[in-house]
């Protein structure tokens, strides 16, 4: 709170005091009172004015300065009222009453939105589970009616399955609830599951799937990790080069107290300027534009799931040569085989 601005605010009081002093002085002079009385009277009047102004100013300054200072330092600014004492002057009381009411009404409003979002999330989760039933039925039907068309149909059904799964994990990654369960998971098992999931596509597109000997066990949520790895491998299959024999190579590495799972393909790579942005929401970049099939969601979901599980994710690439994604897990000696 600045004194200058405070005084400016008080201009009516100041001018009327000035006029009052002028008038009383003129009156006193007209009645021939002594000069001493005039001076004493003026000094006293100004003194009392200063005491009143000072008292009022410092009272306000104390309250508002604390309020402003706390407001600046707080992360959640709407909590500022909780950090100061109730002021002892009328105007301040009114203000804090108003802020309190506004806060309350906004909190209710936010609560309503939270509820809506939660309902929506629950509905989506339920819907995904429901839609998996017909997908399962279709897969079984295709398997039971083996014909020449079988693979073609299965491929499309698997795409459906992947997309619905993506919705499920998007919903999960956006909401800070504990849907996951951390257990010791052998990387080998995760890789195997993802490999079998993508077997038909890998074989059909003649992509060599090379996996080195795997021995590490990491602490993670099994299904989330399967989803993460599946997205990474889907990308490798989507952005392959046509002039070479495509391959996807997976291997483990131990660095200090970290375990890394590397997934390296020899695909089209990612342009250098796009690389820092690939984990951003809805970022499609040059590859996305050229392929026109990208939603920009895959890697964003992967990154947020990794963040929630506490895993690191790194990406390296040289355009036209390779892309290498590495998942970083914390090592726990107890779990090493």
């Amino acid at each position, binding site marked *: 709170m600045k004194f200058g601005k405070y005084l400016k605010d008080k201009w009516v009081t100041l001018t009327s005091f000035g006029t009052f002093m002028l008038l009383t002085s003129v009156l006193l002079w007209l009645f021939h009172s002594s000069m001493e009385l005039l001076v004493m009277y003026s000094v006293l009047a100004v003194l009392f004015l200063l005491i009143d102004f000072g008292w009022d100013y410092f009272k306000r300054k104390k309250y508002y300065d604390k309020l402003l200072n706390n407001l600046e330092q707080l992360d959640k600014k709407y909590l500022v009222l909780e950090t100061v004492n109730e002021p002892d002057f009328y105007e301040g009381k009114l203000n804090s009453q108003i802020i309190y009411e506004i806060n309350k009404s906004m909190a209710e409003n936010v609560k309503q939105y939270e509820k809506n979002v939660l309902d929506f999330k629950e509905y989506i989760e339920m819907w995904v589970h429901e839609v998996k039933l017909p997908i399962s039925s279709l897969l079984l039907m295709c398997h039971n009616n083996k014909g020449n068309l079988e693979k073609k149909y299965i491929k499309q059904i698997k795409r459906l399955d992947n997309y619905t799964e993506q919705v499920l994990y998007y919903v999960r990654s956006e909401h800070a609830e504990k849907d996951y369960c951390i257990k010791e998971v052998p990387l080998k098992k995760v890789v195997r599951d993802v490999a*079998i999931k993508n077997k038909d596509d890998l074989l059909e597109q003649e992509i060599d799937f090379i*996996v080195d000997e795997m021995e590490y066990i990491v602490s993670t949520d099994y299904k989330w990790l399967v989803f993460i790895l599946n997205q990474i491998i889907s990308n490798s299959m989507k952005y392959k080069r046509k002039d070479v024999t495509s391959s996807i190579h997976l291997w483990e590495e131990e660095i200090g107290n970290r375990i890394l799972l590397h997934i390296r393909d020899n695909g089209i790579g990612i342009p250098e300027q796009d690389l820092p942005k690939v984990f951003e929401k809805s970022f499609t970049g040059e590859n996305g534009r050229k392929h026109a099939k990208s939603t920009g969601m895959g890697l964003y979901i992967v990154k947020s799931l990794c963040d929630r599980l506490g895993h690191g994710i790194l990406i390296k690439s040289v355009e036209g040569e390779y892309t290498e994604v590495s998942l970083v897990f914390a090592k726990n000696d107890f779990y090493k085989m």
Partner: protein
Amino acid sequence: MNKILIIEDEISICLELAELLENEGYEADYLKSFENALEDILNANADLLLLDINIPRMNGEMLLREIRKKSDVPVIMVTSRTGEVDEVLCMSYGADDYITKPYNPTILLLRIAAILKRMSGNNNTASYRDAQVNFSKGTICKGDKELVLTKNEMIIFQILLNNQNRIVTRDELMTNLWDNDEFVNDNALTVNISRLRGKLAEFGYIDAIETRKKQGYCLI
């Protein structure tokens, strides 16, 4: 013939599962009503149960607990829920395996075969014509002659032997190999089969593996 009981409320899945299992040579049946689920299941005398978690009246986990009080029949839980917590729960209630919808049908059959095999006890040796096969050692013995197979060859031979005189598709062989962390491609599979053929021929079993055009292979 092993009897498999399907407990699942989605009728289209029941029918397709039953067909899948029958094609594979199992006797398949499914629960028609859930009124007296527990009694019906116990009376069915099945060799294995495929139990869905989301069923009417009682949930699958509860039902499994009740079944376990009275019977040791092998159970594979099937579900569309993707929460890992379910898996932990199911296993602690005594399920033998757990599979998530939508499953790969070949993998489902593999799991069923593995459990039934484990139940029957003998899963390490088998006989083929006049020879003894040892799966874990990867050998086929006849008299004092011994034939050593590589891991991939043994996996292929084992599936063919389990389905002797029936056609096994390339896809089934492939799924089996991949399920054993051997991520081979089409060429490698062809090479492995011709090597296996060669080895069996040297051992005296000429033309043991027949190729059925566009269908697969058959061990005679």
